[in-house]
């Protein structure tokens, strides 16, 4: 029997409501926000018509925070409170940051991630990045005229778990719903591939301000499959500036100089680098705080010589990625250049030489990542109905566990397609052992000390048994964002101690709320208002999603009794979400989720069957 569906008054039943979604390129040097409007990717501009937002955050004496060009203009005058290239600090400890002595900040060594002491207090890189994201969020909401459903934030493909988690935390702190973390080269490939109708194997060479990525993708009928990725998350255009800066110090025989002078000369170095893109020589001039005058001429020949080792550092990972993908140069159809630093002629030359073909530079290397992210955000928000775009990305670095003697046992090898899960069994090595400590690391080296430590946790409550009798299964799951969760349980005794581990450097929900509260600097009810608003949004989304699912499959997959049960739960949630008890709403969301569990399972099953239906007649050989 057919059931008539009647929309409740006041509830939108419009199936094609356009949801506001954006792609954000959170860059080392510049950040951008883009969206898809009437089918076209567009970068959103600020009120002065600028697309780029310099990734510079300044904490002012009056307590205000300045982001972008205004902050950038003050960086030489107020270097210790003006944070430039904060992306290089994301998810990094103080010892992970190369050239830390050249940076004009007051660093604080904190567990997990370095912090910066500013006049506004101690700031974590997550908070500083959130400052940049907030400006972009406001820009987008102003331009689009409404609250954002969500955002896709791009990260370097070679970012490890800590750097990804930090980025996601920053977005949440900025009040953004993260639809997905997307790898920058993959985003670029989407923008390029869709624009050019490309098919075949492409390489994306992405040299940004602070990070280098190489990704090899197979493009086939709208499926973007990453075959291998490699890179260096501490190599970028900034390093080219620093080479020029060091050359200036050498040429002028300068003594160690003040933070202000360092910032001034780094800025001059960057300007000279940019000038050399179209000119044979650049003049560097400036007056230092002690009155000393710097006036030098840098030729492109000298610049090439200074930076040859940096260019060389990008070619090793490129060859490795090719080898990992099992490909040779003849297989490569095109090389897409991404990132402002690929404007440097010596980079283009080196890439052309390696691949024996001219690299593709027809897209603006500054914008292509944000545009690709916007396209993906549009798909994830459900605005695009045709199912022809799919991104299959990989984990950039292997995940492993510490074993006896400080060695790493790899559990998930690099370049595994996401999502991926792998289980590993362990046993006890002493009689009666009841606890076991597990250390998760990420990296390619054999020694634990050479890899990045992600999490340490203790598995307790193992029933006492003879050595070697316990069987503890540890499962690693890496989701589509490239983020890891670990669970463990003892199996042989039937005792299940199931734990889920969040890596130690991530922020807890409470920490996020506390930071938000501090930034609002107001009363307790802010927290409650926010919690209520979040619960209501959750409820709205769930109701909307289930309504859509019922419209499509309710009749086919549910009997009238089951349908009735789900609908009455939905009614209950609708009623509650108009009241102001956030806990009651959360509980109702949870129980509606549970009530639709079997429906979800049947829907997934149906879509698996449908995906390959009818295929076996034509394409399979029996």
């Amino acid at each position, binding site marked *: 029997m057919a059931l008539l569906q009647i929309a409740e008054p006041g509830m939108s039943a419009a199936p094609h409501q356009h949801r506001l979604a954006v792609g954000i390129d959170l860059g080392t040097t510049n950040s951008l926000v883009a969206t898809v409007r009437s089918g076209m990717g567009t970068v959103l501009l600020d009120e002065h018509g600028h697309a780029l937002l310099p990734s510079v955050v300044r904490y002012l004496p009056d307590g205000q925070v300045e982001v972008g060009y205004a902050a950038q203009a003050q960086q030489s005058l107020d270097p210790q409170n003006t944070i430039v290239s904060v992306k290089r600090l994301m998810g990094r400890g103080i010892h992970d940051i190369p050239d830390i002595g050249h940076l004009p900040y007051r660093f604080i060594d904190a567990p997990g991630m370095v912090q910066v002491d500013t006049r506004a207090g101690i700031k974590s890189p997550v908070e500083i990045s959130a400052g940049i994201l907030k400006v972009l969020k406001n820009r987008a909401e102003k331009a689009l005229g409404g609250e954002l459903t969500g955002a896709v934030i791009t990260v370097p493909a070679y970012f490890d778990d800590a750097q990804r988690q930090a980025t996601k935390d920053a977005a949440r702190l900025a009040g953004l719903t993260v639809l997905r973390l997307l790898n920058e080269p993959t985003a670029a490939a989407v923008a390029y591939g869709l624009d050019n109708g490309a098919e075949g194997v492409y390489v994306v060479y992405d040299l940004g301000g602070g990070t280098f990525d190489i990704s090899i993708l197979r493009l086939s009928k709208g499926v973007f499959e990453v075959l291998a990725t490699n890179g260096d998350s501490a190599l970028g255009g900034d390093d080219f500036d620093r080479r020029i800066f060091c050359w200036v110090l050498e040429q002028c025989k300068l003594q160690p100089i003040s933070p202000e002078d360092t910032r001034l000369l780094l800025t001059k170095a960057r300007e000279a680098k940019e000038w050399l893109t179209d000119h044979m020589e650049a003049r560097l001039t400036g007056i230092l705080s002690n009155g000393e005058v710097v006036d030098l001429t840098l030729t492109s020949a000298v610049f090439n010589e200074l930076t040859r080792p940096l260019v060389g550092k990008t070619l090793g990972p490129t*060859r490795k990625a090719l080898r990992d993908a099992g490909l040779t140069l003849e297989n490569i159809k095109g090389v897409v250049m991404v990132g402002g630093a690929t404007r440097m002629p010596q980079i283009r030359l080196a890439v052309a030489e390696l691949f024996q073909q001219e690299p593709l530079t027809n897209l603006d290397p500054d914008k292509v990542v944000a545009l690709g992210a916007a396209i993906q955000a549009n798909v994830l928000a*459900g605005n695009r109905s045709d*199912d022809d775009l799919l991104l299959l990305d990989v984990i950039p670095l292997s995940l492993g566990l510490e074993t006896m003697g400080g060695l790493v046992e790899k559990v998930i090898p690099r370049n595994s397609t996401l*999502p*991926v899960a792998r289980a590993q069994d362990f046993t006890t090595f002493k009689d009666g052992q009841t606890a076991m400590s597990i250390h998760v690391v990420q990296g390619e080296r054999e020694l634990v000390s050479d890899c990045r430590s992600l999490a340490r946790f203790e598995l307790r409550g193992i029933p006492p048994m003879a050595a070697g009798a316990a069987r503890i299964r540890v499962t690693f799951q890496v989701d589509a964002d490239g983020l890891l969760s670990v669970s463990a349980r003892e199996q042989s005794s039937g005792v299940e101690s199931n734990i889920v581990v969040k890596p130690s450097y991530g922020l807890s929900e409470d920490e996020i709320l506390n930071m938000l509260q501090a930034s609002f600097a107001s009363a307790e009810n802010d927290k409650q208002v926010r919690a209520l608003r979040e619960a209501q949004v959750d409820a709205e*989304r769930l109701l*909307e*999603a289930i309504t859509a699912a019922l419209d499509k499959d309710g009749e086919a997959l549910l009997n009238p009794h089951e349908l009735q049960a789900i609908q009455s739960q939905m009614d209950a949630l609708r009623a509650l979400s108009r009241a102001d008890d956030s806990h009651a709403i959360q509980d109702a969301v949870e129980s509606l989720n549970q009530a639709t569990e079997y429906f979800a399972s049947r829907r997934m099953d149906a879509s698996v069957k449908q*995906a390959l239906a009818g*295929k076996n007649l034509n394409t399979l050989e029996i």
Partner: protein
Amino acid sequence: MHNSSRNHFELFNLPTRFAIDLSTLDQHYRKLQSAVHPDRFAAAPAAERLHSMQLATQANEAYRTLKDPTARARYLLQINGVDTEEESNTSMPAEFLVLQMEWREAMEDARAQHDIPALDKLLHEMQQESKTLQQHLHWALDEKKAYPEAAETVRKLRFLDKVRDDIQQSISKLEE
């Protein structure tokens, strides 16, 4: 779990056998991921998101297993209740052991002399040898159901895969 009833072959609508058409596998993998990938469920209720992640994970695992001939054979044997004993059973025919020693020596020599072309040539030779063993697996698994024989061939292939990995690592170290 959700799809424990389907084996990796069935998941992709392929016959459960060693000889499979790799381009069909590629096609069906992409079709399946297009239907179940978490990106398709970003706005879906939590229950569907969870199912989607599990299915997409299973599809990736199945694809990885079937794409690699050694892993595919190992999996087929496992379905048929045969353990390949790759950790415990190290007995090998003498001629295979000799061959293996020769390859290792050739690799050491080439590595010592930084001779990348020689390593590449060796890699090619081993690929040929792997192909022969894979032909044998097709015969043993699909035609004869000679599982103990197939298990020994899997052990041989595992040896070859290891040497090949070592050669590849040597090449990339020399290229650095």
